[in-house]
């Protein structure tokens, strides 16, 4: 909390600390290969070619497509080994790509790698994965 001077009778909590306004940097990755997901649901498959390392806060944007025959696909954003955000995408028919995207802000990665993983039952293919990470290095 920033120090506040000259306030009488008002709680400093009235004035929340602003978010960092530091220097940003960007990183990105594209996976040009189609990824066949593990058929056993509890074992998610990485969609990126490699995890992305950043420090500080980060805004993560990912876009891609999944294809499967009437299955729900779970896509998760993972920091280190922790799942911090998850969405479900319905792939209605085989060979019928369903596009999806996600955006999520991480307060602090603590220097841990960022990855995108997906899982679901049956034969599922993910493709056209593109991720952009805007890191706030303040």
């Amino acid at each position, binding site marked *: 909390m*920033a*120090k*506040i*001077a*000259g306030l009488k009778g008002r709680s400093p909590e009235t004035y929340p600390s602003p978010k960092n*306004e*530091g*220097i*940003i*940097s*960007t*990183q*990105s990755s*594209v996976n*040009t290969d189609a990824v066949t997901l593990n058929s056993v649901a509890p074992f998610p498959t990485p969609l990126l070619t490699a995890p992305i390392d950043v420090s500080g806060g980060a805004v993560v*944007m*990912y*876009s*891609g*497509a999944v*294809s499967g025959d009437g299955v729900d696909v779970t896509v998760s954003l993972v920091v280190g080994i922790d799942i911090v955000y998850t969405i479900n995408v319905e792939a*209605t*028919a085989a*060979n*019928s*790509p*369903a*596009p999806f*995207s996600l955006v999520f802000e991480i307060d602090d990665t603590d220097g841990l790698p960022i990855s995108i993983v997906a899982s679901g039952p049956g034969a599922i293919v993910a*493709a*056209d994965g*593109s*991720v*952009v990470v*805007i890191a706030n290095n*303040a």
Partner: protein
Amino acid sequence: MPKIAGIKNRSPETYPVSKGKPALVETQSNVNTTHTVTDVASSIVEAPISFQAPATGSSKAIVMVSGVLSSPSAGGIDVTVNVLVDTDVPSPPGTVVVAVPVADAPVPFSLVFETTAFTSSSMQTIDVQAATSAGTVVAGGVSFVVMVSSV
């Protein structure tokens, strides 16, 4: 801590040291209400976005596109959406394939993509084009944002 003059009975900590110069960020955008997509690639955005890369240092652009695709009469159409940097060179990684399985059922799509680094002061044009596997679909509400940042 910068020198503060003329302040009495107030803590210098009240006036924090300013942060470093932030990265240069410039954004441009446009929206295209509707565009018919055929099996011949064509631009689906209102207009390509052109800019000059910063004169000093290196820079990249983050491209963000969102919209819907709908077939007026028949389903079973795949639509390939491509980001093109410098118009003549499609960037294969900036691609998403969208299936439009049935008629009159808009399919939302979006695409985020970061370009490679630009040469200083070079002119760049970024476009988004689409083509169908066969037949015709309509691209609607296509929003296009380009954010150029120094590396």
